[in-house]
């Protein structure tokens, strides 16, 4: 390749990379709140310093490896006895260079340490203003989400999609009944592990409305990679409306297909693990399905919430998420269609 062609190709590739911006992508440098902004700030402080130090170190190393050595140096390394008159001056110069290098390194590291401590302190400092408390329980392989309220029957229980108001800090109470998980929504907050037997807390705030994707960040089993979470940041009034709607019990469908679907749900293995408020289904092993149709994804962010995906998921979850704890359910196609119609009715 001619040099010009090569340069043009590289430039084109660089431009193409710069043009990448995935919808819903997890990007710790695309901060949408103070917590992630602090972490991104630390990165932008450390990256240039580290880059400059790296360039200097490599340059000095290459210069040292490539330069021609004088006859005197060769004599010295071979154990020559000839002592040169100005050797003392040279040795003093070398000591000064090495000492200066060590001091500069120590100062740089110390400044980065201070910056790191300051960010760490700011991340853990609990907000003093009014907060929204949310309980998040990590299960293999999905997230249980609860909005506690002083009035017990006003507690909202949902899964995998966390709605939060913008501008108000949320404090998450994290726990796990099975193995270690880690909650990480890169655009909003750093990671925090969910440890069995402990309750840990994490706070963050979203300043711009939007949907932020997160992910379990601690290997938790076969389907760790498909344990996604969506944080939906919305205006306070939208959040209040959503929360009020989530309090409603599921309504009985009016069309006969969905009515049959309800009977299928309550008369087969679904009812052993899932809850739908307003019906006799009250199990807590799997996600609460009371408002399933109001969520945009199923199976912890694995599939879009559509009729076809629900059908495929229920009939054979192992095909979509091998190792998931939900067993396959064999139903005849008519019952299955009715079941999907009922689940899609659960707005």
């Amino acid at each position: 390749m001619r040099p010009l062609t090569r340069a043009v190709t590289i430039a084109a590739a660089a431009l193409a990379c710069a043009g990448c911006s995935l919808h819903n992508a997890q990007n710790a440098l695309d901060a949408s709140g103070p917590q992630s902004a602090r972490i991104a700030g630390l990165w932008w402080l450390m990256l240039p310093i580290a880059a400059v130090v790296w360039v200097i170190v490599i340059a000095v190393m290459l210069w040292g490896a490539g330069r021609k050595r004088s006859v005197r140096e060769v004599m010295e390394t071979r154990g020559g006895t000839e002592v040169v008159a100005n050797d003392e001056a040279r040795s003093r110069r070398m000591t000064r260079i090495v000492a200066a290098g060590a001091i500069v390194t120590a100062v740089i590291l110390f400044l980065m340490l201070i910056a790191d401590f300051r960010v760490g302190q700011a991340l853990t400092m609990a907000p003093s203003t009014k907060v929204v408390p949310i309980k998040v329980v990590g299960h293999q392989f999905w997230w249980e989400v609860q909005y506690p309220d002083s009035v017990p029957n006003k507690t909202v229980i949902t899964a995998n999609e966390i709605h939060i108001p913008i501008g108000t800090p949320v404090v998450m109470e994290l726990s796990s009944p099975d193995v270690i998980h880690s909650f990480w929504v890169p655009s909003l907050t750093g990671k925090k592990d969910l440890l069995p037997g402990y309750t840990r807390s994490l706070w963050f705030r979203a300043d711009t409305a939007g949907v932020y994707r997160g992910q379990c960040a601690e290997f938790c089993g076969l389907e760790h990679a498909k344990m996604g979470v969506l944080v939906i940041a919305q205006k306070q009034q939208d959040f209040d409306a959503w929360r009020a709607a989530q309090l409603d019990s599921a309504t009985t469908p009016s069309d006969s297909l969905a009515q049959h679907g309800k009977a299928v749900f309550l008369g087969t293995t679904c009812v052993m693990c899932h809850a739908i408020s307003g019906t006799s289904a009250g199990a807590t092993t799997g996600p609460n399905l009371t408002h399933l149709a109001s969520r945009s994804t199923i199976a912890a962010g694995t599939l879009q919430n559509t009729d076809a995906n629900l059908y495929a998921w229920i009939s054979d979850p192992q095909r979509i998420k091998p190792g998931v704890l939900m067993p396959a359910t064999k139903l005849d196609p008519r019952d299955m269609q009715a079941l999907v119609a009922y689940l899609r009715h659960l707005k």
Partner: protein
Amino acid sequence: MCSRFAEPAARAGIVVLVVLALAACSRERRTFHDSPPAASVAAESAKAVRSDSGVSRDGPYGNNAWALSQGKQLFSAFNCVGCHSHGGGGMGPPLMDSAWIYGFEPANIYATIANGRPNGMPAFKSRITPQQTWELVAYVRSMSGQGSKAARTNRSDEMEVRPAEAQTKTEKPVLVTPPPTVTPPAQEGHP
């Protein structure tokens, strides 16, 4: 020793033996969408044994490691542990010992799960599929060491209060007399 194995005839013999041994290997069948027959209603009686059910001595899944592990998972997920604990019993009878009240054959246990029993065991017929019921049957039997040792599960997710099923001693099941059925007293003062 080495020189003897180096002989062509001995070498050929070893190859044949290895090939024969490999030919005996078979991977167990794992079916995610199985429709095993439900055990017939005749198994309701504790005395009725395998003759009526048409299933093998250990049930359809007694020797299938995948089905046993599924059964173990469902045993927790479906909250069997709520009454039977992890085999030691509680509100319900223990399942890891040799005593069986309503029969120990797979068909009997199937009937117990499907139709329930007096004094509190609920009927799950209209809740769980025949495949899941058979998986539970296989797991329940493995708790007292029944079925293939090679297929039984080797570790537990919960805190280990007893060795996992693969290390469990095989109990010799015996039938015991059912306790008298308790009828709850009529509740007064309730609408």
